[in-house]
């Protein structure tokens, strides 16, 4: 592995849906070992960017590199995407979903999956269709976090769930389950995680309006993430 490029690089990426440009020259980086948060109202291209990184959706121009290389077949053992809804069949029990993941991925780590299950106080015999919204979100998260991957992309993990589930999920970010990995998370509500993120990328209409380090902006300008958002979006 090459040194010094342990990151995801998004370089001048454009994408169209029909005639509509959804990404209009997006560039930013997400380093390994850091939590990078993509912020923007719905429809600005946050999910599209994640799908583009995973090569689930083709881009019109630009380049996306993971540790200096374009995504290839083996990359899927190194990077994982947690979509905003669970993709397992509703009649499955949690343990069936785990078997499914183990069959698919070499990087599936069953010990970590069990640890996460205990952390979230869930039972492996719980049926996915019987779970509350908050608990479904937790299982969805486990399916991604139990992989031994360097990068985890999470699409709106806090959206539409109760406050206690949100707190529990936020706790994961302060633990060894995230440590040393590169995380990209999208959200439109920053409040729960303002203290937890290393970096922010503000998006609007398919462009990056601002990219900054959260501790640096507090230190140099005395501003909260929300202060900066207000400046950028209300300008």
């Amino acid at each position: 592995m090459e040194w010094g490029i342990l990151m995801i690089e998004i370089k001048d990426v454009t994408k169209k849906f029909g005639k509509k440009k959804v990404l209009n020259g997006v560039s930013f980086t997400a380093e390994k070992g850091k939590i990078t948060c993509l912020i923007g109202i719905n429809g600005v291209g946050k999910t599209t960017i994640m799908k583009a990184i995973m090569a689930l959706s083709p881009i019109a121009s630009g380049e996306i590199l993971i540790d200096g290389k374009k995504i290839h077949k083996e990359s899927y053992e190194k990077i994982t995407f947690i979509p905003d809804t669970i993709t397992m069949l509703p009649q499955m029990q949690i343990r069936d979903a785990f078997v499914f993941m183990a069959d698919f991925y070499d990087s599936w780590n069953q010990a970590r999956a069990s640890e996460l299950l205990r952390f979230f106080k869930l039972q492996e015999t719980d049926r996915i269709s019987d779970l509350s919204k908050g608990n479904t979100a937790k299982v969805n998260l486990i399916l991604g976090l139990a992989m031994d991957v360097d990068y985890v992309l999470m699409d709106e993990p806090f959206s539409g769930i109760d406050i206690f589930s949100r707190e529990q999920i936020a706790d994961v970010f302060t633990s060894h389950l995230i440590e040393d990995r590169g995380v990209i998370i999208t959200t439109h509500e920053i409040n729960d995680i303002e203290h937890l993120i290393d970096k922010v990328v503000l998006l609007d209409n398919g462009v990056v309006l601002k990219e900054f380090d959260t501790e640096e902006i507090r230190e140099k300008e005395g501003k909260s993430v929300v202060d900066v958002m207000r400046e950028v979006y209300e300008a």
Partner: protein
Amino acid sequence: MKVKFNNRDPVYVQVIRHFKEQIASGYFEPGQEIPSRRELANQLKINPNTAQRAYKEMEEQGLILTEGNLPSRISKDEQVLEMVREELILEAVDTFVHSIRSINIPIHEALHLAKDKYEEGN
């Protein structure tokens, strides 16, 4: 350990401040073992990178010591610990003086009240 963080000061600075208060109050004794970076991140609900940064800064300031792979400890250096106490006192007094001065209250009146309030609080 529970700390309420504000959103405008760097989190690592607030963590250091928290440690200084614990040292000044005697909650942390000289030479006492402190949580690992990972434990601290978990306890305070902060990013492990932030915990790392706070510890690094505190090492540079001589507030804590880390030898090899052993757990970090609070310094035993009397001078350093006295400086922490002094810094916190001066800061509190500055804030007090500033507030009193801005509303034109004579200092003896304010001090009198401050003494009463302090004793009430005990």
